[in-house]
């Protein structure tokens, strides 16, 4: 069992008063997680003691920085159980990771008429990069339906798979429903020999990740949702696959030889990391991973799952609340609406009570259209949340309903 009180002590911001001198109740980890002191301190220490640019220098600070950066890569590799650190590319965000694979993959494998399968519950960051590819290569983007529980409609998904399918790219854990993708979906792709990309933005911080057991070919996530600094993301791809792909961006650090006639590129992972990387941010991600590992990803996951069910139980008893998607298979994220009250009102009302939740379309407009909603309110949990906080939240929901529908 996690010692949540101790954990909360590790997060400086959780011990702050915000608006109206209320204690902060942070229920917006799905948008971005708060940072433990050790991550903040290590950024400080890096800049204060060891900082220089990576890879290209011979002097001591450059060596230290390079080692710290490459060490972070190894930590990420172990965290998702990748085979090799050559499979771990640092980007600025999951969004960039998806743009990277979309561009590199498409320029090698996508032709007119080819098809890429997404689902209607994807985040815009897993839709727009593919739309841009569609415009360039005249391929088709197909959207698998979801059922009323907030899971992929497997029959429909299966019906979309064909000879023309070149890639499947889907969210591992929905940032609206909190649902986790069914393993059968991944298996279907594996069986059909279709490469599959999992958008692990939400899953990486909530459930243990093993890319090999999962059977995904590509996996992406953002550091900032995993208690790490902003400005760093991860792209994972199976070595034999990404070895074949052309680079995405060009610049320093990714070339073997350059003349005015042309250039040859270095080996993985540098091939995909043009320019000075977000090196302190990557280091910070490594520190965050250490922190998470020390507590135990399974323990964190269990705690959050328990909290989710605790909240669902209480929310179900509120007849003025609509919860989106079934309660089963929900992890850390709950989207809901108060009947006849717009999510903005809910969020502003809770904000004044010190409670941070998100309101809006959550960068999932196609899903909102599918649900015939224009926005929802969403609470999401991190390792630091407690049942007490849920109680305060539930109470605030009641007050909110009273205020707006009196």
């Amino acid at each position, binding site marked *: 069992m996690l010692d949540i009180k101790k954990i909360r002590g590790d997060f400086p911001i959780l011990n702050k008063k915000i608006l109206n001198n209320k204690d902060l109740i942070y229920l917006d980890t799905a948008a971005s997680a708060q940072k433990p002191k050790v991550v903040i301190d290590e950024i400080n220490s890096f800049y204060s003691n060891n900082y220089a640019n990576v890879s290209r220098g011979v002097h001591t600070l450059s060596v230290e920085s390079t080692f710290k950066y490459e060490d972070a890569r190894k930590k990420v590799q172990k965290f998702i159980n990748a085979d090799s650190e050559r499979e771990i590319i640092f980007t600025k965000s999951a969004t960039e990771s998806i743009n990277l694979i979309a561009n590199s993959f498409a320029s090698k494998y996508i032709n007119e008429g080819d098809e890429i399968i997404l689902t209607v519950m994807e985040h815009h960051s897993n839709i727009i990069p593919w739309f841009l590819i569609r415009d360039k290569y005249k391929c088709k983007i197909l959207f698998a339906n979801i059922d009323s529980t907030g899971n992929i409609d497997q029959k429909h998904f299966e019906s979309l798979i064909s000879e023309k399918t070149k890639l499947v790219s889907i969210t591992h854990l929905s940032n609206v429903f909190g649902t986790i993708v069914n393993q059968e979906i991944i298996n279907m792709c594996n069986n059909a020999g279709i490469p599959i990309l999992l958008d692990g933005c939400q899953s990486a911080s909530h459930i243990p990740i093993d890319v090999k057991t999962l059977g995904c070919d590509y996996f992406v996530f953002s550091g900032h949702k995993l208690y790490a600094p902003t400005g760093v993301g991860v792209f994972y791809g199976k070595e034999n696959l990404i070895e074949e792909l052309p680079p995405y961006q060009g610049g320093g650090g990714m070339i073997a030889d350059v003349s005015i006639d042309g250039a040859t590129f270095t080996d993985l992972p540098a091939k995909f990391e043009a320019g000075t990387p977000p090196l302190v941010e990557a280091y910070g991600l490594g520190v965050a991973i250490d922190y998470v590992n020390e507590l135990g990803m399974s323990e964190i996951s269990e705690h959050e799952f328990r909290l989710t069910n605790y909240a669902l139980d209480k929310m179900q008893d509120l007849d003025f609340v609509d919860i989106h998607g079934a309660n089963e298979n929900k992890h850390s994220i709950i989207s809901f609406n108060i009947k006849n009250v717009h999510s*903005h*009102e809910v969020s502003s009302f809770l*904000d004044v009570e010190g409670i941070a939740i998100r309101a809006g379309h959550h960068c999932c407009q196609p899903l909102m259209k599918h649900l015939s909603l224009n926005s929802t309110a969403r609470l999401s949990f991190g390792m630091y949340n407690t049942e007490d906080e849920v109680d305060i939240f539930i109470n605030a929901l009641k007050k909110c309903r009273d*205020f707006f529908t009196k």
Partner: protein
Amino acid sequence: MNDLIKELYQEIILDHGQSPRNFGECDPHNKSADGHNPLCGDNLKLTFYINNEDVIEDIKFTGEGCAISLASASLMTEKLKGKKIDIAEEIFSDFTNLVSGSSEDLKVLNEEDSLYALKGVGGFPMRVKCATMAWHAFKSALKS
């Protein structure tokens, strides 16, 4: 109940938010524009008719939105109906100043105005876009 919330959601806001006035489409109209808040997906469609004396003879809106955006649109239509365009534009700039917290040098609006009820939005900077959505639609319709 909390003061900030009470200031944001004054009676008149809740009232107009729940039962917006001038909801619908002007027939005929010679100006129209869509308003959109990309943060949340809220949207509205504004239509109005300007006669040949440059007076806004009729103005209506439809759409979906939060109480702030609906109330703001509703109060806007009440305020602008019957106004000449140049006055309407002055009201526009006064209003945007009011809700973004700089309410010192207003030219045409004063504390008696029902629009003043939206002043509390200044305390919730992320809601300014809700309050101004209809107004920006008005402005862009004028240009069209």
